[in-house]
């Protein structure tokens, strides 16, 4: 009888039957291995969670004080039934992990979300050899190729200074967990005062606890607002767009930092002044080099439009497949998710 695959998609999520655990389940389960604390990967309601020690505080903050979370150091092997599980840095956000699953000599790795460029707020991505690699594919097209982050931060700094000279606040929309802290660590804090939205400041103690050094942010009150008018950098989730909280900063230039900003259409649709292409996901070249570094012969791609990456890998002799999951990409970025491409010969559909 052929063995069932070590990991398979079930109604509740990616499931390991032999070890009886789920990885990033989208419904409550008994035992959830969690790659990182973004909401589409870390849903509440499961009985037990296992995550990387570095990310335990942020996960607790996200899931609430009642959640039972165990953190283990990167690289430490734990056993569930006869399955060996270990977590390895994914470089996506603080505490993000790839999950290595080994059973009877067969190794699978679930990447979670990852990026290859190292940055100060999390441990850098480490390639893990495996037979089967389940990779994210949020930006799985060669139009997505990131420029070095130093260049992007130069742009952000320049924009901030320009706004100061026009006596305007600089409102930068960012994802609250991960991107916000990466931006805090990356900008030149000597330019001026920095404010962050409550959704972001709530997470800062967890970063401090994990030993990540970030510049100090301003207390939000009438006095600090008055003193810093027209000079501050303001970080806020895009959900706060047009909120009374943001209006308190007066005249401002608005921007968004995300991988989706690579496309002019996505930038213009948001009707913001600027878009900075800064992503915590791997770009096309990053995906290809990460896949290659695993040495895996079988690849499952998930998130976004997987078809082009799958076809590319197959044309290079790999056993590649798309995997339908309920991960949505970063929740705040759903709206910018591109329409899936399609290569079939153009058949005139629906002639009027």
């Amino acid at each position, binding site marked *: 009888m052929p063995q069932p695959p070590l990991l398979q998609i079930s109604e509740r999520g990616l499931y390991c039957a032999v070890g009886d655990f789920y990885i990033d389940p989208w419904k409550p389960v008994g035992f959830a291995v969690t790659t990182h604390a973004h909401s589409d990967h870390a849903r509440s309601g499961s009985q037990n969670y296992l995550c990387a020690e570095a990310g335990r505080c942020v996960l607790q903050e996200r899931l609430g004080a009642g959640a039972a979370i165990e953190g283990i150091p990167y690289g430490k092997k734990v056993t569930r039934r006869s399955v060996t599980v270990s977590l390895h840095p994914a470089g996506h956000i603080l505490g993000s992990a790839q999950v290595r699953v080994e059973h009877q000599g067969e190794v699978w790795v679930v990447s979670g979300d990852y990026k290859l460029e190292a940055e100060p707020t999390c441990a850098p991505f480490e390639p893990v050899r495996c037979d089967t690699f389940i990779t994210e594919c949020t930006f799985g*097209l060669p139009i997505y190729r990131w420029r070095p982050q130093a260049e992007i931060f130069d742009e952000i700094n320049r924009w901030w200074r320009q706004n100061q000279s026009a006596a305007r606040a600089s409102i930068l929309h960012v994802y609250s967990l991960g991107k916000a802290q990466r931006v805090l660590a990356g900008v030149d804090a000597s330019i001026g005062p920095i404010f962050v939205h409550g959704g972001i400041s709530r997470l800062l103690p967890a970063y401090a606890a994990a030993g990540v050094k970030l510049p100090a942010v301003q207390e939000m009150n009438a006095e600090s607002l008055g003193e810093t008018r027209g000079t501050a950098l303001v970080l806020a989730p895009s959900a706060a767009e047009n909120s009374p909280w943001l209006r308190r900063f007066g005249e401002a230039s608005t921007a968004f930092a995300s991988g989706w900003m690579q*496309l002019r259409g996505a930038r*213009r*649709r948001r009707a913001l002044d600027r878009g900075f292409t800064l992503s915590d996901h791997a770009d096309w070249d990053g995906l290809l080099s990460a896949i290659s570094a695993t040495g895996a012969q079988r690849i499952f791609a998930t998130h976004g439009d997987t078809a*082009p990456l799958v076809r*590319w890998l197959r044309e290079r002799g790999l056993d590649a497949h798309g995997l339908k999951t309920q991960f949505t990409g970063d929740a705040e970025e759903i709206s910018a998710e591109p329409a899936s491409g399609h290569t079939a010969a153009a058949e005139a*559909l*629906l002639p*009027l």
Partner: protein
Amino acid sequence: MKRFTQLYTELDQTNRTNEKVAALESYFREAAPADAAWALHFLCGRKVPRAVTSTALREWAAAESALPAWLLDECYETVGDLAETIALILPDTVGGLTLPLHQMVAERLLDLESLPLPARRKLLAQTWRELNANERFVWNKLLTGSFRVGVAQTLVERALASVAGVAQSAMAHRLMGLWKPREEDFLRLLSGAENDAGEIAKPFPFFLASPTQDPTALGAISDWQVEWKWDGIRAQIIRRQGEALIWSRGDEMITGSFPEIAAAATALPDGTVLDGEILAWTDAKPQPFGRLQLRLGRKSPSTKLQRDLPVVFVAYDVLEFAGEDWRARALSERRSKLETAIAAAAAAPRAANEEDAQRDLFERLEPATQRDFPLRISEILHPVSWEELSHRRMESRARAVEGVMLKRLTSSYGTGRQRGDWWKWKIEPLTMDAVLIGAQAGHGRRANLYTDYTFGVWHGGALVPVAKAYSGLTDEEILEVDKFVRGHTTGKFGPVRAVEAELVFELAFEGINESPRHKSGIAVRFPRIKRRRDDKKPEDADTLESLRALLLQNNRG
């Protein structure tokens, strides 16, 4: 090229009108006139002949990027813009090409066409390698003739007017005339020193009406001149120095397409400019716009086409008479002048044109009758109250007009869409409830979102496509529908997704006609989404039969 790319970036990076104008202004001040002339050419939406087909462009770009053609196509579908797609996938370069814009255009764009294909490819690939990523994008935009930067013509006019130190209206007028992207022409646009040949061809900037839904707020109806709102091609007749030219509102010279109007216009006294509407006209009634387009599409229509599809120019206004600018005078005064000028022209012996030359001399010298003279005058309605007008307005559809126009009798002829003196009170559109059956990703601002929708109505138990619509939803609704499309796809056909019949929308449209070219047998004009009908189930949507009934009802008389 570097300075021009910088301008493009500045314009692209702000949503503030004043900053856009400032960026344009400093560009026009700083750039060499020869470069500024080309920048202006592109900013005004003018193009250069296309030297590379998009098929070749894709093939070459794929080869330069070492990507298979299918992957480039996938990228293009996501980006929705070929110029941008290519700029994104080409390998990184350092740039370093410092040729000024006019030289880039002359040596790398205009010359491209004359080169054999392999040399063309080589030069283009070399240009791509020598430009940095931003420059490459702008360059591809010029190459593909899709240079649009979200700058309205009025902003360009404002910036240039400020550089030249003249009023915006004056600059708008200068820009409407004949000029080429040359250093001397650019300097002439700034200085206002007129080249005679260019000057006589210039139309005036058109005055545009604003929409109103409640004219009673406009005061006494006796203050207003009321006309039907014709639905054709807005145009000006320029009768100067022995010539008669026709310019469309789209800033295009369309004299060649309408020779009978141009010929009739030579009966106007020299130094006359009329504003009006060109309409296809048969049986004392304007024909659907589609018929007029057949004429517009021909640069020189055959005599047969002229006979089969006669056109008229319905004059609204006189802007210049006896070489004098009349725009500042009151509408009532202009109208009297217009009436006498048209009557005089109609009574004058017909001027000879090619067709007439073959006719008998005596026949030619006979005064033309009002009936077949193609210059008409827009009829004035004389309702005594807004209430009476609202009744007359209901005749609009039967008369094949879009509603009524209201023009203040004391008003001068302005430029652009200045509110207050000219209003259009359009009839309510026709509507139908239709089911979303397909969607395609949009372009530009809507790239990588499913925003181009196909709608169907019921016929024999199935939904037949009857309309495509792109507009009418809020950004938020667009995102919701996009999500629905992704989650309810039943099939993919090229870039189009077929979706489950679930969402019902109310569509508004302006007209409905028989159309053997369409599967449903009918065609609707200007369909757009009025609102979502979440209260309706798909089975509650309209049927083809109900639309046919609408067709009969509206095209009577």
